[in-house]
């Protein structure tokens, strides 16, 4: 025999202020958890989820990032023979040579300067990176035109279609922005793309930064990597998703730091809940004894208090989610310590994060209520009844 939920619900209103304060404590923890988690996952998704599984990224053997890599033209030519490379409509292998440089732009938010990656690509680049979708017009090869990633456009000043952005070693070459592109939320969306030959000329570069090779299928990755890493080429091959996963190590660390702090905060909330539930148990000793006399089992009493704590936690979770919603859609960027360029990300509060927060809140509630409920179950019936 269990107690009706209505009994628990009514009990929440007996001590309104206490219930309210307890709800508030958990709600604040939930809100902090949600915002921090979405911050962390947004950051990781912006980098970690980038790359196509059948793409092989080639860097100089010593380089750790595209921005500090250098591939000489004679080495680049060898990549055309990579085994397993897919072939494009023109019969040429899908090998995209890319120049990755940077330019300093101002943030819309506070006018501070941000180092944005500029990628020079040929037409084949859009076959290799086929997730890139251009809105507006594509740049024309041979013209000083550029397209801008969606994240970059929303974070930085002067990157709208029709604007002119100054690029080049001394920023003396103006490129007209003719389009905006999306790439399924990947790191590319934080970049500016322009024709490779024009970028190489503007930055006075006689070499490329990286090459991306589209393979027939992801199974041929190992053979292709062996060729690139081997004595014939002596460059370094990584699968594109793996490269970006490594780049997200840095944000991973911050996520751990922040989660550590939230766990301490949640522990504090557990104590607060325990306090409230102890008060509830103490205040209802006679009532509990009465229920026992009526035939409710110890288990039913324990369950009743746990359900009550869970209700408080659930309520708090709803409040916490509501409080965190205004942060959803917020856009920020961070400077990578590997590429030294900025990546934009969006704080998105997903159902998954809300579920995680609910689980955390229920955990806090139930752990906090565990000892008080056990105490309630042990209430000596006769003595508790006599006291009144």
């Amino acid at each position, binding site marked *: 025999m269990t107690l009706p939920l209505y009994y628990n619900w009514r009990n929440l209103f007996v*001590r309104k*202020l*206490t219930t309210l*304060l*307890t709800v*508030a*404590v958990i709600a*604040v*923890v939930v*809100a*902090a958890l949600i915002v*921090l988690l979405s911050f962390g996952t947004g*950051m990781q998704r912006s980098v970690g989820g980038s790359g196509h599984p059948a793409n092989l990224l080639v860097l*100089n*053997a*010593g*380089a*750790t*990032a595209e*921005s*500090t890599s*250098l591939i000489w033209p004679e080495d680049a030519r060898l990549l055309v023979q990579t085994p397993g490379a897919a072939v494009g409509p023109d019969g040429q292998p899908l090998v995209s040579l890319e120049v990755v*440089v940077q*330019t*300093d732009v101002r943030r819309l938010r506070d006018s*501070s300067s*941000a*180092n944005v990656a500029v990628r020079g690509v040929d037409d084949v680049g859009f076959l290799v990176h086929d997730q890139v979708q251009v809105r507006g017009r594509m740049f024309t090869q041979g013209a000083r035109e550029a397209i801008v990633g969606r994240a970059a456009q929303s974070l930085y000043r002067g990157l709208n279609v029709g604007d002119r952005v100054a690029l*080049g*070693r*001394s*920023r*003396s070459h103006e490129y007209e922005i003719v389009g905006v592109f999306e790439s399924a939320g990947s790191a590319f969306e934080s970049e500016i793309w322009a024709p490779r030959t024009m970028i190489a000329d503007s930055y006075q570069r006689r070499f490329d930064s990286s090459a991306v090779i589209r393979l027939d299928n992801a199974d041929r990755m190992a053979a292709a990597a062996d060729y690139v890493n081997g004595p014939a080429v002596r460059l370094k091959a990584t699968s594109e998703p793996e490269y970006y996963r490594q780049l997200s*190590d*840095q*944000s991973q*660390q*911050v996520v751990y*730091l*922040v989660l550590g*702090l939230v766990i*301490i*905060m949640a*522990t*504090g*909330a557990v*104590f*607060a809940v*325990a*306090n*409230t539930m*102890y*008060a509830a148990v103490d205040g209802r000793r006679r009532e509990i004894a009465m229920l026992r006399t009526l035939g409710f089992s110890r288990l039913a009493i324990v369950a009743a208090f746990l359900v009550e704590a869970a209700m408080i936690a659930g309520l708090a979770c709803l409040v916490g989610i509501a409080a965190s919603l205004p942060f959803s859609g917020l856009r920020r960027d*961070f*400077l990578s*310590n590997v590429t*030294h*360029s*900025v990546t934009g990300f969006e704080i998105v509060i997903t159902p998954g994060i809300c579920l995680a927060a609910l689980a955390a809140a229920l955990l806090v509630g139930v752990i906090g209520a565990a000892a008080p409920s056990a105490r309630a179950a042990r209430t000596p019936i006769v003595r508790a009844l006599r006291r*009144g």
Partner: protein
Amino acid sequence: MDLLLTLLLRNLGRNPRRSALTVAAVAMPVVILVLSFTIVAQLNRFLDDSAAQLRLAVAHKTSIINPLPYGHKARIAALDPQKRDIIAVVGIAWIGGVLANDREPLTTMGVDADEFPIAFTDHLLTQQEREAWQRDRRALIVGRSTAAKMGWKVGDRVTIRASIPPYSEFSFNVISTAPKAIDPVANWCHLSYVFEERARSGLPESSVDLVSFLFVKCSGRAALERYRVEIDRLFENTPDETQTQDEKAFLNQFISQQFDLPTNLTLLALITIAVAVLAAANTMNMSFRDRIGEAATLRALGFSARFGAWLSLTESVLLCGIGGCVGVLAPVIAFGYTPIGDVQIPLIVRLEIGPGVCVVALTLALAIGTIAGAWPAIQGGRLRVIDALRSLE
């Protein structure tokens, strides 16, 4: 007053479980407070100490990672041939670096060997170190936290592969682990070694004599301000325009762009204060309700309403004060006297919890107690004695 104290202590001991839970619920947020404030304070101290070095950082205007021609050094030095305002100009070439079989990026920089000790007075403190630095082309000064992490000590031979072209392996002799350096992470080597290595590896000539930044040591604030503008003017309308900032602004752009940790941690700390206030207020509210009868009895005996209010308030402040002490002591002990202290916090090196942060945290804990106790205190003051006594069982 004695009575107040007696009652206060008795009240605290009356429901020891509740008091203990409240102390714990307040202590946890204080722990976060202490940790967050320490991280922020350490970042700020790092910036302020750097600013006190009176150095300007000259970078390429196009982007912080665009290199500058090394020739800029002589042109900047020529602005003040008597060296009255500009004491030294140091070329710095960032080579980053990784160890074999390790992905962890290092911060290694080649610097002008002659000027470095003049401009970076927090390094090479002993005559012996200075001699070793000048004598050995492959000398390496290792940041002390890097040294601790890698287990390097003076006399070791280490091989670091540069993260930028020519990506060659540099073999260094560790001559110092920079015990007093402001920057505990960065490693410093001879710029000439970097240039040689670039030339040897067949990089085109134009890519050899390049530096990432130039640091300009000035004689005073006025000189700092003056040359901050003058250096940029000197290179205006050349292919390699510069952006000159004082060192604090220069370093801050890296720190604030990496997740804006100072702002976000301060925010988190403020939120936790809210949690502590709510938790403590809850306890005080419960305790007050339990003791309504007592409060009324005291009033009936002739004690003033003020006395009752004081009783609530002091109890709350005391509880939160104890919570504050626990919350401060826990991290101080954990990071000062246990192996936890060796854990490297991302972006920060080693947490050193200063007395200032402890005082701030304790003050905040007392403030939390005051706020939490205020409501029951006001209620107690307004108590209608007859009603309260009548409601007694």
